[in-house]
Each structure stands twice: as C-alpha cells, then as structure tokens.
C-alpha cells in the first residue's frame, strides 16, 4: 500500500456532508483501499478452497436431499397409514432390501454433513469469542461424527432376528 496522491483534478464533485473539506490537488482525498486487496502483509498462502467446496457441497447435497428426504417423509408419514404403521417389523421389512439400506445410508451421511456444515456457519456467524467458537465447533464435530458412525453401524449391523 502506497500513499497514492495522484488524484484527478477534474470530475470530482462536492462531497456530500463534507462541508469545508473540498478535495483537490492540494488537499487529496484519502485513498480507500479495496477490502481484500493483497498487500505486502498478506500471507502468500491462503487457506485454499475449503469454503468454496463447502458452498458447492451445500447446493449439490441439497438437491439430492430434496429427493431422499421428501421420499422418506412420503413413505414414513403419508403412505400406508402414516406414522402409525412404524415399528420394529416395518424397519426390518425395509432394511431387508439393499436399496433402502443405501437410501438411508446416503440420506444419513448427506444430511449430517449438510446440517453439520450449516451449523458450522451459524456458529461462525454468532459466536464472537475465539474460544467459544472453537469449543462450540468441537462439540458440533464430535456430535456429528458420533451420529454418522452410530447410524452407519446400525444400518450395517441390523439384525431382524435380534430376539
């Protein structure tokens, strides 16, 4: 950043609310730097494209989840008597098919990662203290990993003859 004082003399009208501060050759307006201009102090290495990948993931997983989740709701809450039909036997009947196992597995992973990243954004937005933000995110990551692993284990080790 250099103190650039070569401002154009013409074409600069009076600044609103700046009574008594007419900028000109002898009184140049201060240079306002672009918010993300790279300066000598900017580190050479930035953090890569993680945030862009996360942004894209939210959109792609969102489209898939619309199909998976709305299909799930239709089956569980609307068709064949709605929620009143659900029980161990119903779960056993559905997970007998690899199709529904894959459906539920995909839904579990995508929904947890989509929701986890959404909550990460919310924490980043509202938790202002560094330590608060750090620990809230650690809690979030722990809960997310635990839930994904537990759900995956349940789908793969389900035993219809547990009794």
């Amino acid at each position, binding site marked *: 950043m250099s103190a650039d004082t070569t401002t154009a003399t013409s074409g600069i009208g009076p600044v609103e609310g700046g009574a008594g501060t007419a900028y000109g050759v002898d009184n140049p307006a201060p240079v306002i730097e672009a918010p993300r201009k790279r300066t000598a102090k900017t580190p050479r290495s930035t953090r890569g494209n993680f945030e862009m990948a996360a942004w894209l993931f939210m*959109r792609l997983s*969102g*489209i898939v*989840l*619309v199909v998976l*989740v*709305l299909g799930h*709701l239709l089956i569980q*809450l*609307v068709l064949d*008597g*709605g*929620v*009143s039909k*659900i*029980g*161990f*036997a119903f*779960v*056993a009947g559905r997970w007998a098919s690899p199709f529904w196992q894959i459906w539920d597995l995909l839904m*579990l992973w995508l*929904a*947890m990662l989509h*929701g*986890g990243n*959404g*909550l990460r954004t*919310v924490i980043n937005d509202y938790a202002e203290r560094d330590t608060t933000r750090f620990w809230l995110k650690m809690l979030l990551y722990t*809960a997310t990993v635990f*839930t994904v692993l*537990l*759900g995956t*284990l*349940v789908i793969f*080790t*389900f*035993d219809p003859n*547990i*009794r």
Partner: protein
Amino acid sequence: MPAGTLYRGREGMWSWVAHRVTGVLIFFFLFVHVLDTALVRVSPEAYDKVVATYKTPIVALLEYGLVAAILFHALNGLRVIAVDFWSKGPRYQKQMLWTVMGIWVVLMVGALYPVLGHAVRELFGS
C-alpha cells in the same frame, strides 16, 4: 434503523432467517432421530416403545411442524440454488419466494390429513 445495517427486512432477509431457523431445527431433530432409530440394535421392544410416543397427538403436531420446516427448507433451498446458478435468479428471487410459499401452503394442506389424521381420530374417536 441502526447504522451499518445492510438488509432492510424484506423478502430476501426474512427467507434467509427462516432458512437458518428451519435448518437448525431440522439438524437437532436429525440428531434425535438417529438416536431413536439406533434402538433397533437394542431390542424390538425398546424401539417400539419409543416409536409409540411418536404416535401420540402432541408429537403428531410436532411432526406436522417438522414437515413444515423441512418443506420450507427444501423449497427455499432450491430457490437459493436458482439464485446462485441461474443467470436471472437474483432478478426473480422475490417471485420465486412467493412461488415457494404457494407450493408450501398446498403441500402443508395436503399433509394435514396424513400427518394429523390419526391424532384427530385418537382424540375425538373414530
């Protein structure tokens, strides 16, 4: 209006707020839902006992609220994708929001009987 406020509380901001609130609610439900489903690894009785509470009228009302949150989040999410990827998306974001709300109302009316029907029958007899 406080200084530095970028948004002025119109469709764009309120849909963003609603997307956030519904998203957080759905995430917390999902957490509970994976835990309750995990009971199938404990015993059929443990699972059926918990699911039985899901069939009570009060929880049926909560289910209806969950459906409302998921439908809004899904439809508005598609709108957000359209705003981001469709060249005319930002120009039509308001019209798209009202389209979302229209479809949402229709689907919510459609979900009324399937989701709340059994609760009403239980409360008032069949």
